[in-house]
């Protein structure tokens, strides 16, 4: 029936709105927006790193304040933890798929890697984000010989917060990342498998 008419119908359609812009005005607005987004990204990066840097500074200072060996080990873990968070955030940013100019299959593969990286970050949150400060706190509390009741209250409080973060991330991995990665994988295989058959 329509085989040859499809293009004609599509191109002659009046269903779509017509796009209009003033070239000079658009150029100015795009430059302005780009600068705005650059600033936004820089501020976000600074905000993210400030938290980790503060942990490093406070833990570093704690090394000289507290005398107990266990507390000092806790502080060293704190310093290492701050550095680890900064590295993990930096590594994730490196994987962001900004290269939109790549051919689509390559772009999709890079995008898949990026999503897989984000998923790993979320599913391993207990190891790189939650466990180190928990251990550091535990060592600090024992080192400072706080009472068993205070120790239990503090650790249970932290544990409750961590459980919330852990299960929220686990849900995100299951409900968001896995289906998305499956979809991208499917798109990649649709393009590549049929390429191999020809």
């Amino acid at each position, binding site marked *: *029936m*329509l*085989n040859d*008419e*499809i*293009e004609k*119908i*599509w*191109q*002659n*359609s*009046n*269903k*779509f*709105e*017509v*796009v*209009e*812009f*003033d*070239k000079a*005005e*658009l*150029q*100015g*607005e*795009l*430059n302005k*927006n*780009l600068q705005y*987004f650059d600033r936004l990204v820089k501020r976000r990066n600074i905000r993210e790193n400030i938290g980790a840097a503060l942990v490093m500074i406070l833990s570093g200072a704690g090394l000289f304040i507290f005398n107990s060996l266990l507390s000092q080990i806790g502080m060293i873990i704190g310093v290492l933890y701050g550095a680890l968070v900064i590295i993990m955030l930096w590594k994730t940013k490196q994987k962001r*798929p*900004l*290269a*939109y*100019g*790549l*051919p*689509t*299959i*390559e*772009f*999709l593969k890079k*995008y898949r890697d990026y*999503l897989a990286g*984000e998923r790993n970050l979320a599913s391993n949150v207990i190891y790189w984000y939650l466990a180190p400060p928990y251990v550091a706190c535990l060592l600090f509390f024992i080192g400072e010989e706080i009472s068993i009741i205070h120790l239990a209250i503090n650790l249970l409080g932290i544990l409750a917060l961590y459980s919330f973060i852990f299960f929220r991330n686990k849900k*995100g991995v299951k409900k*968001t*990342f896995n289906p*998305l990665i499956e*979809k*991208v994988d*499917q*798109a990649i295989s*649709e*393009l590549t498998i*049929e*390429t191999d058959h*020809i």
Partner: protein
Amino acid sequence: MEKELESIFIETLERNKDRIYRICCSYTTEREDPRDLYQDVVLNLWKSIPSFRHESSIDTWLYRITVNICLRARNTYINKNKFFVKLESIHFRKPEEPSVVSEENELYQKLFEAIKKLDETYKSIILLHLEGLSHKSIGEILCLSENHVAVRIKRAKSRLLILMKS
């Protein structure tokens, strides 16, 4: 050099603006606004200018980025509404007079609905084909051989016809 490229880009965008918008419309669901996606595409195109290496024509490059951004938009976990930029200088005007007769309008509606139902890769290929791009250009955009593009177009058209009849 970059200023020169920026002017070429604006000219290319002007030439292809409606085609890009049609592609965006085909990638948005009823709950999404194609105008948001269009503006996101334009901003990302602008951001990507420094990466243009003259390895393909600027038109091909522009479509490649458009398809990639549309595919990313369909497969993202980020709350898109939070990040979409509003470009005040871009206006969307409803067409004033119908340029096609009602029978064609009906066919068009069926075609549009059928395209939306295609899976994303078929959709990319058929949209680029409907916008008049050569097999070679489509191949360059998607990283496929011309033969492969031809076969995929044929299959996509058969699927479209089945979907339009159903």
